[in-house]
Structures are given as structure tokens and as C-alpha cells.
């Protein structure tokens, strides 16, 4: 209980879009997701576009407001707190952004970028200087004296992302949401950033929510993995277990769809699930995956949403197949 850093309970985040004078459309970006993260733990949230994973991350940081559900951070319910009471929260919970090209203000030097959070939270000059250099050392931008003067456009994508991480670290956060931190970085540099984040996690003990569409990176850099589809978490559990034994058909699809480098790949037609992820305005009734699922049970999967079932300790899934099995084996 005490080392539970963040708890999201049944979060529903909807967006409203006005179409014309009278119609308003509701985009159900996150439609009932629960997840918890411990200190020193990395939980990967994996999904495709429209799955709601980015929105879940932003909700966790209160950058968007959920319409229902609870956000409990370090034991305190912050769901309904106003901005003015959240300064302490903003110090402890930070975000790493996806695009290294737009997440840094192009008119600020590296020093100014990393110093900014310290100025906002009222640190004095000496302390700021120390923390900036320490952060640059932590993200291995050597020598720090050279880097502080540079502008973002003078740095490579990987270096920019490290500046983004350094900006995150200066306030010594306990919780970080990393939103696709390496998708816009060259493949040969990704592992470097992810290893860096892992080592920083070991050093400082923060919890990380790692949002990605790349299930392969999640395998090596997360302790737990949550698979999201159409605004819901359909499977969650220890990464190794989920990937070795995917319970939800969608999880199996994701794994199947990603090729490993193998010269034999080109002779095989990969097993693919037809169709596309559903429209978040009008998701299908019942289980959201049912129109594409080969194991669909008529009359059940297309009518009622499956409940969450525990398959083994810490491994949960929302699928009628496993409920039936569970019922059968009970």
C-alpha cells in the first residue's frame, strides 16, 4: 500500500467536439481504465492510435480532466484539486514528450530550458546552477558547460530528447509519464535513451508510465505491461508473462503483427486481423474488439462488455474467453 505511487481508478476521459450549431460529439478517449504504478516500477501502456494511451498519460498528470474516476497520487486524491493547490503535485509528477523537435522552446538555450522548472518553483540561483549541471551529467551530455549554451536546433534528436529528460529530472520527480519518448528517434539510438531512463530509475527510484505503440521496446524496458484498445485496458500483467502467454486476442494480434528481423519473413503471409480500430465516438457494443476477433462468441461478445478477470497473480484480462474458462475451471 505504501509504495503505491499512482492509482488510476476507472478513469473516463471524454472530449467534446462541437459540430455545427447544435450537435456535440463525444469522443470517449479513455472509457474506464484502471492502473497502478509502484515506486521504482515501469509500467508500459501499449496500444495503437485511438487506443487512449496518450490521453491516459495526460490524465494521470492532470493535463486533461477526467469526467469520472479517481487519481490517487502518493495516497492523496488529487482528482478534483484546482491548479492552485497542485504546485506540489507538479513538482513530483513530470512528463517526457514524444517529439524532440517541438517539445523544446526553440528560442531558449539548454540552460534556460532545464532551469525553467526551477525558476517556477522558486529555487535560488546557486541551487539552480547545481541542479542544471547535475541533470546534464545524469543524462550524459558531456561536457555540460558546452551544452548549456546551445539552442535546440544545434542538437541531434537524441540529444534533444535527453535535454527533455534533464528538464524532467531537475525537480526530482517521483513519477514520470514518458509519452512515446523514442518513437521519433533513430532505431540505433533508442536503446540508449531507454537504458538511460532505466538507470535513472534505478538511481532515483521514480515510477515511470511508458506509453508506446512499440510492444518490442516495452518488452525490455518495463516491469508491467497494459494493453489498451479503444479506450479500455484489455490486458495487464507482468511484461514477460503477458508477452509469453498473451491472453487477449488483441494482444496476440499485436505480437503477431510485429516482425523480428528474419530472412524467412518474406515467404510467409503474416497472420493479420482484418479491419481497423474503432471510432472513439461510436465504439461497437459489448467487447470493443469483437468485430475483428476470430474467437468472437455470438450473442455474448457483441452484447455485453466482458468483466476483468484474474488469470494468475497480477495478470488480468477483459475477455469472455477467459471468463468462460474461469467459469469452467471453477
Amino acid at each position, binding site marked *: 500500500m505504501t509504495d503505491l505511487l499512482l492509482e488510476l481508478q476507472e478513469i473516463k476521459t471524454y472530449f467534446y467536439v462541437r459540430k455545427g450549431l447544435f450537435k456535440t460529439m463525444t469522443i470517449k478517449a479513455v472509457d474506464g481504465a484502471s492502473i497502478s504504478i509502484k515506486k521504482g516500477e515501469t509500467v508500459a501502456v501499449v496500444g495503437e492510435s485511438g487506443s487512449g494511451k496518450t490521453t491516459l498519460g495526460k490524465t494521470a498528470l492532470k493535463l486533461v480532466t477526467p469526467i469520472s474516476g479517481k487519481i490517487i497520487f502518493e495516497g492523496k486524491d488529487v482528482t478534483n484539486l484546482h491548479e492552485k493547490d497542485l504546485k506540489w503535485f507538479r513538482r513530483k509528477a513530470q512528463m517526457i514528450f514524444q517529439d524532440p523537435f517541438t517539445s523544446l522552446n526553440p528560442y531558449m538555450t539548454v540552460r534556460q530550458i532545464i532551469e525553467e522548472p526551477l525558476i517556477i518553483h522558486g529555487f535560488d540561483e546557486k541551487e539552480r546552477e547545481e541542479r542544471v549541471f547535475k541533470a546534464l551529467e545524469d543524462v550524459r551530455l558531456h561536457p555540460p558547460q558546452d551544452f548549456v549554451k546551445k539552442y535546440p536546433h544545434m542538437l541531434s534528436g537524441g540529444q534533444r530528447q535527453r535535454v527533455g529528460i534533464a528538464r524532467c529530472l531537475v525537480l526530482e520527480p517521483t513519477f514520470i509519464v514518458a509519452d512515446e519518448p523514442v518513437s521519433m528517434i533513430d532505431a540505433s539510438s533508442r536503446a540508449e535513451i531507454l537504458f538511460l531512463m532505466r538507470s535513472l530509475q534505478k538511481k532515483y527510484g521514480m515510477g515511470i508510465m511508458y506509453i508506446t505503440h512499440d510492444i518490442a521496446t516495452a518488452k525490455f524496458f518495463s516491469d508491467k505491461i497494459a494493453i489498451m484498445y479503444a479506450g479500455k485496458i484489455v490486458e495487464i500483467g507482468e511484461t514477460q508473462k503477458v508477452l509469453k502467454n498473451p491472453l487477449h486476442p488483441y494482444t496476440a494480434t499485436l505480437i503477431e503483427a510485429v516482425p523480428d*528481423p528474419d530472412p524467412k519473413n518474406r515467404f510467409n503471409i503474416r497472420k493479420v486481423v482484418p479491419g481497423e480500430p474503432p471510432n472513439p465516438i461510436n465504439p461497437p457494443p459489448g467487447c470493443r474488439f469483437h468485430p475483428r476477433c476470430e474467437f468472437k462468441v455470438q450473442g455474448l461478445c457483441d452484447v455485453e462488455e466482458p468483466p476483468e478477470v484474474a488469470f494468475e497473480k497480477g495478470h488480468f484480462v477483459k475477455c469472455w474467453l477467459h471468463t468462460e474458462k474461469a467459469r469452467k475451471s471453477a
Partner: protein
Amino acid sequence: MALLEVRGLKLYYKTVRGPIKAVDDVDFSVEKGETLGLVGESGCGKSSVAISIIRLLPRNVEVYEGRIFFDGIDLMQLSEEDFRRKIRWKRISMVFQGAMNSLNPVLKVGFQVAEPLVVHQNMDKEEAVRRAKELFKLVGLPPDFVERYPHELSGGMKQRVVIAMALALNPEMVILDEPTSALDVSIQAQIMNLLKSLKRELGLSMIFITHDIALASDICDKIGVMYAGQIVELSSIENVLLSPKHPYTQKLIASVPLLRGDRVPEFIPGAPPDLVDPPPGCRFHPRCPHSDGMRCVKDVPPMVGVEGDHFVRCWLYSGGLK
């Protein structure tokens, strides 16, 4: 004789800071029915190779030279007009990066697919629409989608439309520049399956450009690994994946996180070089664990053949370093 043979291709762009040597002496060939993958990371010049072949160059080109033999014809000798009439889209076509987002939003997709038919083959409208519907079936779209507008289609569907456009005039070769990078993985797998079946059904020759070597293994018979404007390794996919010779290739393969294996992914420290002022000698030497600090720094290694048809550009194989 290979369908496409490229020798000594060079493409330099003009900029304020000096010429960007995007493609710097590239050689490769593609046999009929073969798929060549050009694999490399940001700034390696793979997209520039593509536009060099299909000759859709921007205005700030400083150097554009080399020989491109297509079915025996030296494309570089053709005039603009000849190239447009005889080669472009008719015999070699292209699927551009992010093309699905460049569909004209105010025109029906059927019209956009039929356009090359009307322009190049002077087809009348009815015939063109009929052919468009055939093409849609070929790429796995319902024929009545010809009436739809781009915003009514999903990403995967738009990409199929773009592929249909590229196939409109029955080309012998299609160049695809990152055709799936903007798509979700499940859709990506669908499109790759489509490309595999098109390759088989139509006997297409393809150049498949990607930064993802695992994805390249899904369709390519031959791989050319590019770094900083040059091809550093060129051979069959078996050779490159199972016994990579160039240190960059080795590290690139090692940095792919495996879903079905347990090897921990590696990384290459540093970043690709600035193409205006690339490092002297071998362009990879600043990041290479095998750099000898002498020849690698001074001289550009030549492309040499190792064990038959496996080509490497590295001093380790050009005599004397091992």
C-alpha cells in the same frame, strides 16, 4: 541483365552552408521481380536515392550525376519530356512518404487514381473509372470506394489508394518510401501482406525504403544498408541478416528489440553526421568500435565484394586491417 542498374549515383543539394552530399557514389542493381530494400536512419540519403531514380528533384540541386540503366536505357540521358512520357509512372512509379496525407482532399479518390490513366493514356472517363475499380479490387478495397473522399477513409485505406495510384499504369518497378511508417502495427501488417501478394501476382520489382530493418526482412530479397549518403553493405537478405559484415549493419541489427528472442538491444552512441561536412575517410569511423584511427580516418573505403555477391564498404575487408 538486371532491370535496374545504378552506377556512381550522386545527388548534392545546394544550401547556404554548402552542398549537402545526400547521395554520394551509390551503386546497386535490382533484378526483375526482385525487391531491394534500402535501409538506413535519418539523413542517410535513402529518400534522395528514390527521387533521383524517378527524377523528381527539388530546385536546389547542385550535383546530379551517375548512370541509371533501366532495361538497358540510360535514364540520365533522357530529356525531361522523354522521361515524363516514357518512364515516369509508366514503367517506374513511386509511393511517397506520407503520401496518404497528400491526397487531394477535394477530389474523390477514384478520380485521383484514374488521373494518370487519363493523362498518360488518354483514356476516356468511363474506361478510366472501370480501371480504377479494378485497381481498388487489386489492393483490397471495395470497388465502390471510388466515390469516396479521402477524409472518409482510414489511414490504411488511404495507403491502399496510394498504392493503387502507383499501379495505375502497370509499371514494372515501384519505389516505396516508408509506405507504412505512419500506420498502426496491425494495419502495417495488412499492407505488408498486400505488398507481398502484389509482388507475387504482378511480378513487380520493388525498391522498399525503410528505417526498420525488421520490416525490410518482411518483403525484401536484397538489402542495401545506407549510412551518410553511401551504401555500406549490399547483399541478399540472408547474408545481411545472418552474417552482417559492416560494423554499422551489425550494430543496427543488434539494436532491434526482439519480441521472440531474449537478446538485449544495443545502441550506437552519437548521431549520424552532418552531410554538409561529413567526417573524412569512412563516414562511420567516429562511431565505429573497430576504427583504426589511421586509414579509417583518412581514406574512404571502396566497395568490395566478399564471398561472391556480398559487398561491403569497410577497411576491415579491403586488405590489411584484420
